Every structure is written in C-alpha cells, then in structure tokens.
C-alpha cells in the first residue's frame, strides 16, 4: 500500500514542465522524430542540395556575347555549347582517362590486395597496411612534383633507361601517336601513370576488404570438386570480390573525373573537365558553361553509382 502511494507522489512530482514535455513527445512520436531529424535534414537540404541546385540553375542561363555578363533567362544554349567539338573533346578525354585509370588500378590492385588478404600475417600485414597508406599521408602536391621530376626528359627514368640501354624502348613508346609526346611528363602516358599511382590505395583497400570476406572453404570446395585454379578464380573468387572492385572503381573513377591538378602539372596541357570548369569559371567568367560542365560528371557518376548498386558494391564499403 505504502509503495503505491510513493509511486503516485513521484509521478505527481515529475508532472512539472519537463514531465509535460516528455509526455507530449510520448503521445506524439512523429513530432519527436521530426525535431530530431530537422537539423541534419536542413543541413543536407540547404547546404548540400541547395548549393547543388543553385549550380544546376546557373547552367540554364547563358552568357551575353557582347558584354560578357550572365543573362538570367532560361535557355538550353549553354548545353548546346557543351556539345561543340572542343568541349566534347574534353569530356571524351576525361572519361576515357578515368576508364583506363580505373581498369589498370583494378588490375594492379587485385594481386596486391589478394596477397594482403590471404598470405600476409602479423608483422607483414602491418607493414603492408603502412605501405599502402603511407603515400596517402604525404601531400598530394609533393607527390605530383616528385613524379614530374621522375618522368622529365632529363629525369630519373630516362637516366635509368640509358644506363640499361633501353632508351630506344622509351623513344619508341613516345613516338606513338596520342599517348606519346616529347617526354613522359608531357604525354598522356605520364598523366596516366601518376593518376594510377595516386589513386591506387583507394582501389586496394576495398578489394582487400571484400577478399577477406570470401570464405576459404568455398575456394577449397571448388578445387575439391575438380576445378582448375583459373576456373576457381573465374567462377568463385572474382564474383565474390566484384563488389569490392566496383567500390574501389567508384573512387578511382570519380577522383580521376574531377581532378584538375595532375593534368595541369603532368601532361600535354590539354584540358580535363576539372580544368575546363576552372578556366570557364575563373578565367572566362562564363559561369553558365562552367556549371554545365560540372553537370557532366554528376550525370556520369549517377549512372555509374546506379550500376554499381546493382552489382552490390555498397555492401563492401
């Protein structure tokens, strides 16, 4: 009897302001949810989507040929401009570079990740992690400038190849159209090498994560059932590791698509999308065209992510 009374007293005490508020929330759970979600949603909505929308909106304006001022009237002419030869060249150049860099990164990263996931143990594992991560710790610019010196005409690589009497190999490569050039550091090959180097860790780590999740007994079962190592790889290992490869490719692909520093320092001065945005916005003051250019990677990445999701890439993140 006495315990019941004391409980009543406690309830009565709590029925102050705090109590009433908590009662209110208890009775109206949706209000509580809305209140908790509002700040992050506002953040996402205003800061992120809002700025994106403002950008997209710009691309529907045009620039006045005469004064160079932005004409705030709805038009699709800027998108028409985006599809002229020069700009189409830039888009094709960037996307092909991103595709090739992604493919090569995957090709190089897979064996490394496989070794790390399957064979490296203890100290070696730690060493491996350090090895992969270490380049990420130093400044991106320092690495690129270092590569410029390595790839230069009178750089380390040329010196090494001269010592090995292999300079003819480099010259033969550089005499090829498109991918060649005066030296590695002013050719697409150089840009490609540096892109692969800089983004490789972003490919290795997700592949390793997905390989570690492949049960060893599945591979053993596959060979017990008489399949050759190639067959095991094709039908068991690769499909199971694919989400990791796709996850890694999202990084390498989108990073290559958006980068504007590497192609400026290493390469033939031909523009990539990021540089085009910078030049149109900063130099020409043609914000509509710059905005239209930024829409291109958004669309490409949208399609890419949609495909990646269907392949289960987000399970491996």
């Amino acid at each position, binding site marked *: 009897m006495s315990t019941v009374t004391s409980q009543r007293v406690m309830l009565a005490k709590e029925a102050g302001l705090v109590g009433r508020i908590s009662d209110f929330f208890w009775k109206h759970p949706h209000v509580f949810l809305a209140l908790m979600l509002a700040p992050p949603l506002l953040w996402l909505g205003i800061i992120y989507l809002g700025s994106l*929308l*403002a950008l997209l*909106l710009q691309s529907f304006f045009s*620039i006045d*040929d*005469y004064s*160079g001022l*932005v004409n*705030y009237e709805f038009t699709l002419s800027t998108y028409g401009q985006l599809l002229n*030869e*020069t700009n189409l*060249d*830039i888009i094709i*150049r960037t996307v092909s570079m991103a595709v090739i860099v992604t493919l090569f990164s995957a090709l190089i990263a897979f064996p490394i990740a496989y070794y790390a996931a399957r064979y490296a143990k203890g100290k070696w594992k730690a060493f491996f992690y350090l090895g992969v991560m270490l380049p990420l710790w130093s400044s991106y610019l320092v690495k690129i400038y270092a590569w*410029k*010196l390595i790839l*230069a*005409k*009178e*750089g380390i690589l040329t010196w090494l190849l001269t010592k090995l009497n292999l300079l003819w190999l480099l010259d033969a490569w550089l005499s090829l159209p498109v991918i060649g*050039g*005066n*030296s590695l*550091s*002013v050719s697409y090959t150089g840009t490609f090498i540096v892109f692969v180097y800089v983004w490789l860790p972003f490919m290795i780590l997700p592949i390793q994560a997905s390989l570690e999740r492949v049960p060893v007994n599945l591979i053993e079962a596959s060979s017990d059932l008489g399949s050759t190592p190639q067959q095991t790889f094709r039908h068991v290992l690769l499909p199971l590791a694919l989400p990791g490869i796709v996850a890694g490719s999202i990084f390498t692909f989108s990073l290559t698509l958006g980068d504007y520093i590497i192609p*400026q*320092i290493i*390469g*033939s*001065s*031909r*523009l990539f999308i990021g540089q*085009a945005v910078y*030049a*149109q916005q*900063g*130099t*020409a*003051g*043609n914000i509509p*065209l710059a905005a239209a250019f930024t829409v291109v990677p958004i669309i490409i990445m949208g399609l890419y992510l949609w495909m990646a999701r269907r392949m289960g890439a987000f399970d491996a993140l």
Partner: protein
Amino acid sequence: MKQILKSCTALTLSLAFCTQVIAQEALKELGKGEGELSIVAWAGYIERGDTDKAYDWVSSFEKETGCKVSVKTAATSDEMVALMNEGGFDLVTASGDASLRLVAGKRVQPINTNLIPSWKNVDKRLQEAPWYTVKGVHYGVPYVWGPNVLMYNTEVFKDKPPKSWNVVFEEMNLPDGKSNKGRIQAYDGPIHIADAANYLMFHKPELGIKSPYELNEDQYKAALDVLRGQRKLAGRYWHDAMIQVDDFKNEGVVASGSWPFQVNLLKSEKQPVASEFPEEGTTGWADTTMLHAESSHPNCAYMWMEHSLSAKVQGDVSAWFGANPSVGAACKGNELLTDEGCATNGYNDFDKIKFWRTPVSKCESQSECVPYHRWVSDYIGVIGGR
C-alpha cells in the same frame, strides 16, 4: 519544385541588381587614416620583410600612417577580378587584362590625382595609359610593369641569339642542328593569342592588325592558325612560373616566351639562359593600383598610393619582381635594383611593348572585335588540338 526554382531565380536576380553601383566621383579631399587597409596583390608585390629582410616596404608605411596593411595574394588576373567582385578589399594591383574589366564592372572608383603629390613623378609614358584611363579619368596609379621576353638557352643558340619570335611559332632547325619541335613552350593563358597577333602584325601587314588585343574575325582566325602550328611544337604550356623554370632545367625546353622574373631566377642558379626583345616587339603587363568602389578605408588607400610611388618602394619592388618602376627616379641609386636593373628588366624597351588589355567586342580600331570569353574557349580548343 517550380516554386523553389522561381524563388531561386528571383534571389539571383535581386543579387545581380544589388551589386550594380552608380557611377562615382573621385574623392575631393583627404581625411585622417582609418587605421586599416586591405590589398589584393600578386605574390611578391607587397613585401614586409618576411621572405627577405631587405625587401620591406610595408613596415615603414604602417609606422608613418598608422594604417595596418593586410594582403590577399591572387595568382591570376581573373582571381583578382573575382575577389574585387566579392568586395571587402580596398586596393588591387590589377594588370591590364583585369583593370578595364574592373572599370567596366564599376568595381573601382576614379582617382583624384591632385591628392597624390608623387603623381607628377610618374613616368610620362604611363600617365595617360589606356589600361587604366577611361575618357580622361584615371582609375588608379601605375605600380610596376614588365615585358614578356623571349627566353632562350645560350648553349643551344650560342652566338646567334634568336632575333624573332618565329622560333616559338614555326618549325625550324635551331643553331645546334636539331629541330625546335618539343623544345619550346608557350604561355598557358588565352592572352597568348595576342602574342600570335603581334607576330602577324609584323609579318603579315596585309591582315591590317592595329592592336593585338583588337582582332576582327579574319585576324583572329589567322592568329589561331599560328597557334595551331605552335601546338605541334610545344610539349607543354606554362602556367606557373616555377614550373617553367623546372622545364628549362629538366625538360629540355630551350626557348619560350617568359617574364624577366624567370630569366633572373635561372641566371641566379647559373643556368645557361638569356632573354631577347625580338624584332616584332613583345607583349607585356603593366599593373595599376586601383581603389575599390566601396572601399571603407579610402584615406589609407590614398596614402598607400602616394607611398607606392616613392622612388624607394618602386625600386625595391622592381628588384624583387624583375619588373620596371613607374617612377624614373627609381632607376638610379637603388641598392637592391642597382643602376643596371632597369635596363636588364627592359625599361628602355617601353615602346616595343604592347601591354596586356582585355579584348572587348566594342573596340576602338575597328567596328567589332572578338571578345575575351571567346579567346578563352578557343584557346582551350587550340591546346586540345582543334
């Protein structure tokens, strides 16, 4: 959704209107300093002895006037225009390809030269310069200027220094017997089209180019053709002065348009380079200290303009940057610049220089010219191989 789009448009429109400023009049008289001054400048233009103790022209100004100087450095003319459009700054050291844009955009205000005692010392060649004087009204005071010279490797050219810009525009064998293909460079900015136009002005007078910054469609097309030829010769285009320095050292580049800054730097590192004023003349930059239309510290700004025109400051800046002073007296007796400094940096070649200006469609020498934003997109195309 439609509603959001509409309100966004309305917002942008209202912002566009807000930034419109009514034409201003110059200051009538000076008051006391406001205690502060913010300047947008090229790197190395406003030094307070942080990099090298000998190069300091801010500390003394602060002590005398009580105006605390803060500097925002910008890397390109376009960045400067963008910063000035944002506002919040008092002064900018604008090059000729930015200054008229700032005037046209009404981001800078006219200057009353009577309030600047040192104005009378300014080089007569610069006093009415068209890159900051519009209809007789001055929108600033000259800071320093310099040419875009032809830098070359003395080991390759030996005793035959290049007399013409053709070494960077046309394929030929250099004095060392090898082709110039892949061994030359060009500036990675649309304003480089003017260099090609300048070259044509000399070699193809039938095109009738009056100014390399005022080109009609035919002249413009001819200039782009010259640059397309150059694309086949140039491995890379230089954007950053330090990258060009590196390319002369490690990339086998032997000739390129350049600034005295890089020439002096390479020479100081004992590299075999020299520079030349080719027969066609050159383009160049002349920078102007301009005052923001809504400056909140105009008195300090006028004091700085006065200070910036003193022979000492002019000489020091020129020595530091490899530029030329706008005040003749600075050429003599400056410890840092030395008495040969002006000649080295091209002080006597003023007449051979066609200074950077922003190409506009409404030009003086003919009915209609190709505007700057087309220079930008077409130059991208040329570099891309179109």
